[in-house]
């Protein structure tokens, strides 16, 4: 890894060279009172002074809906057209938070468990991540409790830490990052020896992951699930804004004799998710579904995939219509 300095005008020049290279650039944009990732052409479109985007960046490597393959039926025969990885354009994600970048690892762990997921991997391969370390946080943030930090480099190809002079410390983490630097190499100056941690928000850890994990391993039959989930109304908001939630559905899009098989987001909070055709539903009650959400992230994923299914971004707590606050619930379990 190499550390460099980039000035304010250098950032502008570099951004322009990325856009000019033909890669699609996505960045947080302030629109309709929300900060959302959108395709941008100019640095001036990029939002400033916010804690978190409403949605995570996971859609860039796990689209809300995507075509697994398409088919055509003719005289009893079927012709398949496979997904083409070349159809995915080169994409640069600009100003990703470290908690979002950290989400790529658990996502890829899920998609590549035992067998590789061609579609997800194609997206990942074509995506470069430029993260910005966090100078701001709010009461929903808890990355430091789940192996993360406001300056965590996991999942980033380059990380910028903004400095008071409008310039930034640039940490070039991966070869993909080096390739982005190569688009405008002269703007990257020698490291000025600034201490990055001075510019990061201070966010003390709120719970110990090991402790929570140990508690959860014995908590399946606890009454806590029912108590916590009584007010849960069973929507999928938490799962859909989450950077690591990956439960999906496979559906059919049919038009006469042609069709496409589509993978789309699903959520374990929906009752329909596990409903058998016979009418039997293994997770019949909302409390069971809430338990699944937390256990999967904090107990099953660490056990099976060796990665925590939560990056502490706090989006689910902010998005929940009835204030199901994951930090509050996890800390209360840790305290039991």
């Amino acid at each position: 890894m190499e550390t460099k300095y980039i000035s304010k005008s250098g950032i502008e020049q570099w951004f322009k060279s990325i856009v000019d290279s033909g890669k699609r650039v996505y960045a947080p944009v302030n629109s309709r009172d929300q900060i959302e990732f959108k395709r941008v052409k100019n640095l001036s479109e990029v939002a400033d002074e916010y804690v978190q985007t409403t949605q995570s960046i996971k859609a860039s490597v796990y689209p809300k809906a995507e075509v697994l393959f398409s088919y055509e039926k003719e005289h009893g025969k079927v012709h398949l057209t496979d997904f083409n990885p070349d159809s995915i354009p080169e994409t640069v994600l600009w100003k990703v938070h470290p908690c979002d970048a950290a989400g790529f690892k658990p996502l890829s762990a899920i998609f590549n468990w035992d067998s590789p997921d061609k579609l997800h991997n194609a997206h990942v391969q074509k995506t470069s991540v430029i993260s910005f370390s966090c100078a701001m946080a709010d009461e929903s943030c808890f990355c430091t409790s789940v192996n993360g930090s406001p300056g965590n480099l996991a999942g980033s190809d380059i990380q910028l830490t903004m400095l008071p002079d409008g310039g930034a410390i640039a940490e070039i983490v991966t070869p993909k990052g080096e390739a982005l630097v190569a688009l405008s190499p002269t703007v990257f100056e020698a490291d000025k020896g600034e201490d990055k941690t001075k510019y990061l928000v201070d966010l003390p850890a709120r719970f110990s992951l090991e402790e929570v994990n140990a508690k959860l391993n014995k908590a399946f039959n606890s009454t806590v699930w029912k108590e916590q989930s009584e007010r849960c109304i069973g929507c999928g908001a938490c799962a859909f804004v989450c950077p690591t939630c990956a439960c999906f559905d496979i559906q059919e899009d049919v038009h006469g004799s042609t069709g496409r098989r589509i993978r789309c987001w699903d959520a374990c909070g929906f009752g329909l998710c596990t409903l058998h055709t016979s009418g039997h539903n293994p997770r019949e009650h909302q409390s069971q579904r809430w338990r699944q959400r937390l256990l999967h992230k904090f107990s099953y994923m660490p056990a099976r995939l060796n990665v925590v299914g939560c990056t502490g971004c706090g989006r689910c707590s902010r998005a929940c219509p009835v204030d199901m606050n994951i930090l509050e619930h996890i800390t209360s379990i840790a305290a039991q």
Partner: protein
Amino acid sequence: MEKLRERAAAILADGTVSLVIGYEEGTKRPRPLFCHDGESARKLIFDSRCFHNLAVYLTKKELVGNGRFAVTATISTLRSIMQLYVENQLSEDKLLILTVDLSGTLREFVTFDEISAYVEQFELKRGEREQEILTRIEGMTREERWKFWQEEMSHCFKCYACRSACPLCYCTKCVVEVNRPQWINPWPAPVANMEWHINRAMHMVGRCTACGACGDACPVGIPIDLITRKMMEDMAPEFGYIPGLPVKKGNALSTWKLDDREQFIR
């Protein structure tokens, strides 16, 4: 507020009810609270910040059980309760209403007639936000409206928070979950999103009480509550009533009048 807590604790203690659904302080703003005993009743609050429509829980058997339960109700919640009653989803012997009126007095309702008489005093008006956005939409050309909603709908990812937050979306199997035939494609895409929201509005005709819970719940900030509110406002003169206001049995779409307007029919 103290009176409310005392009363809630008392009816839980003497077995009048087995559950009180109310509000407590949340991490950002008040949130729903389920009190099973006097201890938890101490956490109850009730003020102008309490906005959740608690009527959404009243049709969930796994939560309210078979016994009698009480709910601390805002005016919006009361309107929804009235509409649920009209639709035969609630009965008087299962329900006890606690509310605090404008003068700060604790009020208690047992019958739907009492609720009706109380709710009638409050006019259903557009709030500032609704007025602002609806005026803007009403001032648009049709093409502009289409564009406006297309932009809004492009954010919808079908988490169905709108459906989950709505007290009147109590169907155990929603039309989007029907797959023979698959009426509405289940993935988020512009047409599927549009069809879902038009469908939701159609199913709310003569039923939506304009509580705004769907709009509040939407995590991506689509003003979906305004679709049903506008429809409700448009339909009030057509069908001669506003849902959730003075008790009228029957729904707009399950009945008809000989002289329903038909100048649009050739």
